[in-house]
């Protein structure tokens, strides 16, 4: 029979080792993976993105700025730029690094992929808003051009990323519509049982399948909604929507802007 104290100590050591390896975000396995993912393609794409960002901000990229942005040595940055030049993606001169037309196209495609991924993560996953960027940063290097188009199609060709920046395409893009409800409107979640209000609109933050489901249930501007029933744990709340009783969680009700209107409410 193994000595129980000894067994527990061995167990603790094993668990500790596993945690060191697999701790989310910090573990050795993740770090190793990160190094392995740092392929030539990723470096080139990151370099192009940096050049594009500088250009967009009316600055000029240089070897120095690139070494800083990519967290590599100066010598490494020089070699990287040489390779970019060989592929005719950038053109270096005394003033700094300029993107060629092909380089700009490439950079725009990366940007498009990045913003599409952010849109995807925001609409269809449980990934926290603070992690959207980093996750998109990882995923943007993995798709071929046709896969990017398929991703866009699967989401119904979105026009904006969740931060409100346009997703680059070959087509013209509208300015983001301003939200009708910003200041004076209340959220649906502010209703107490028995109170009614009229829907003004669904917040832009609610997109994708969630928005579509709410629209299908009849949550459209002008619909009168009555809060009817509070769950035993107070969330969710059941609302009378177009004469059906629908339970919505508070985080959903927070995204629906309403206006209390005594003439329309309280039916």
């Amino acid at each position, binding site marked *: 029979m193994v000595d129980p104290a000894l067994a527990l100590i061995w167990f603790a050591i094993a668990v500790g080792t596993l945690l060191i390896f697999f701790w989310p975000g910090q573990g050795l396995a993740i770090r190793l993976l990160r190094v392995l993912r740092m392929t030539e393609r990723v470096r080139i794409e990151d370099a192009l993105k940096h050049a594009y960002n500088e250009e967009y901000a009316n600055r000029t990229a240089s070897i120095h700025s690139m070494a800083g942005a990519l967290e590599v040595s100066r010598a490494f940055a020089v070699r990287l730029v040489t390779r970019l030049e060989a592929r005719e993606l950038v053109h270096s001169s005394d003033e700094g690094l300029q993107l060629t037309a092909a380089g700009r196209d490439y950079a725009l495609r990366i940007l498009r992929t990045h913003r599409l991924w952010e849109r995807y993560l925001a609409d*269809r996953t*449980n990934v926290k808003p603070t992690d959207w960027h980093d996750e998109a940063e990882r995923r943007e290097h993995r798709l071929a051009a046709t896969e990017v188009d398929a991703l866009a199609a699967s989401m119904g060709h979105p026009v904006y990323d969740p931060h409100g920046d346009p997703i680059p395409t070959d087509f013209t893009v509208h300015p983001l519509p301003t939200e009708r409800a910003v200041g004076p409107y209340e959220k649906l979640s502010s209703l107490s049982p028995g109170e009614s209000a009229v829907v003004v609109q669904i917040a832009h933050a609610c997109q994708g399948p969630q928005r579509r*489901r709410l629209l299908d249930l009849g949550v459209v501007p002008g619909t009168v909604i009555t809060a009817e*029933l509070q769950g035993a744990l107070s969330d*969710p709340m059941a609302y009378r929507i177009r*004469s059906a009783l629908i339970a919505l969680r508070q985080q959903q009700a927070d995204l629906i802007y309403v206006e209390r209107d005594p003439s329309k409410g309280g039916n």
Partner: protein
Amino acid sequence: MAVPAVTGHCVGCEAHREASLVKLGIRLDRWDYLVALAGNPNTGKSTVFNAATGLRQHTGNWPGKTVARAEGGYDHLGKRVKVIDLPGTYSLQAGSTDEEVARDFILFGQPDVTVAVVDATRLERNLNLVLQILEITDRVVICLNLMDEARRHGIGIDAARLEQELGVPVIPTVARRGQGIADLVDAIDGVASGRIQTKPYRMRRHPPEVDGAIGALAGAIQEAYPNLPNSRWVANRLLNADARVQAAVLSGDVGELGSRQSDAAVSDTGSRAALRESNRRSRIIDKAQALRWKLSPDFHDSLAESIYAEAQRIADRCAMQGLERAKFDFDRTLDRLVTSRWLGFPIMLLVLTVVFWITIAGANLPSRMISAMLLETVHPALKNFASTVGLPWWLDGFLLDGVYLATAWVIAVMLPPMAIFFPLFTLLEDFGYLPRVAFNLDKLFQKAGAHGKQALTMCMGFGCNAAGVVSTRVIDSPRERLIAIITNNFSLCNGRWPTQILIASIFIGALVPAHVAGLVSATAVVGVAVLGMAMMLLASWLLSRTVLQGEATTFSLELPPYRPPRVLQTLYTSVIDRTLIVLWRAVLFAMPAGAVIWLAANINIGGVSIAEHLATWLNPVGLLIGLNGVVLLAYIVAIPANEIVIPTVLMLTTLSLGTQGLGQGPGVMFEETASATGTMLRLAGWTALTGVNLMLFSLLHNPCSTTIYTIYKETKSANWTLVATLLPLLMGIVVCFLVAQIWRLIAA
């Protein structure tokens, strides 16, 4: 994404339809008319289906979810009519798999008639779907169901007026009582045969910017497909970037949707013409794409808004005034009660306790009777027969002591509780109480990153995990559904209750004075079940924070009105749907298991049976986690069904003790009294720790093979099946290990 159901040319002709439907996985007889039943969830669609088809339906809800629909048929005026019950959906935007299945069938399945079942108490929301159906097809009959409920709630609908507005027949029904079904069947026949001409209402008032785009596009589509009756709808779908419709336009399939006899718009008119045609088609797609970028990003919203505006207008015109509402609002009063802060949870616990009590108490007697019949009457008779025929001892033992006894045991132990538990549960579901349970518990599940409806699948898991996994279909959000599937095994299923009860009474009950032994061991069993729920929430939380955070998610939970359940119907469907199918699968897996057990116990190597070799070999690992080799071996053997853990443990223990006369004869199964079993187990070195850990391990170990197979069928993913199998096993090993070490530390 669902695989498109029907593709290919000449969709219109009879031969093709038969051929293409075979692809859908439907067994076809001959039929004259094909009818699709569509509608919102909770409109009594299935009731209409059953009322029309009688009990001759094949409730085909078992195959993969892409074809999650029932089918049936009836004869009317000498015409054979085949009815397909489509999944209940709120719209046909093809946003979810269900919507896609329904839309694809209405559009590409070419039903002769689409019956839209409408809940008269929620007319506006149901009209949202009806208006979308009318955009796709002319051949529609509206079944205005639940007229009695509407009357009770003071809602009156002028059916004649509605018919006038929509331009298709509107038949008021009370499907539960069969009222109006004859009229419905008649109207279906009328529309199918062309006796009734429909002039379906088409959306006129799209938002202006969308209207312009649709108009421009519809012209081009009409030019390419002159016979198409719904070019505006197709244009609308193209603007919405509907991949399925896009593909149909490109391939030319859409052209054949027009009329029955239409020749394919293109096909074999020479390659140059074909090329020209395909250029024209891709120009349509390009045009749609260009137009789409000119629309404002929230044009989906304005589309939904305009459909609802129309729905509201129509509903208002058809509303009859002056009806009196029933004085006592039963629904509202009951809702207040069962969701109240103080009474909500006590009522829930009470209801569940009563269901379990009826199941356990009620199953006892039939279980004994079946086991007496199968084990004590049929088995000896078969043995006699085998010896008179002169079967060799090994074949006789293999078939009768191995395969037959294992199967008989599983039937005796599983059938009665399931036949009681599932109907009771279905009655609660039909009545409308279970959605309220989900509503009450949603907060807990939300914190764990799961869906409130997981509370229902969890309860279903108490009956049988395989049935629990299937029941996760009610969760329409993919991520939460996956969580519910993977964690369902933490519900202590029917097959494990007997193990818990036996071991608790032997080892836990023995620790306390005799007069409280029963109470204490019962509490221990309930404690294990509650621990299972806690583990389920923990596992859900872990999964939703790690591997599953990248999956899609939505939440919506409709609380349907209470409806008096129909007992006989429920009995029939729950026995067919849940009990018999689960039992059949269990039997399929129990038969080989019985064979393996018999072989392991009867084939000797070096004078010792294989089973003993394995048990000895597993013993060190077993002891490390506070169990022993026999228990581990039993759990490996019992992968097919948890029910056979105890019999296997007993058989192997007798074998290892070498107690002659106990394990020899029956080979696999036998029954003993609890105290005799306890004496024997203690003789084999079992302690209270072994008992406690066996209870824990019985809760936390891999699902039975029936459940694993069901998980694979439901997820269609080997990876998730592996996670669902290994996660609880790993948790069980860790928990048992820790308990054993700490127990020994304290005891020392």
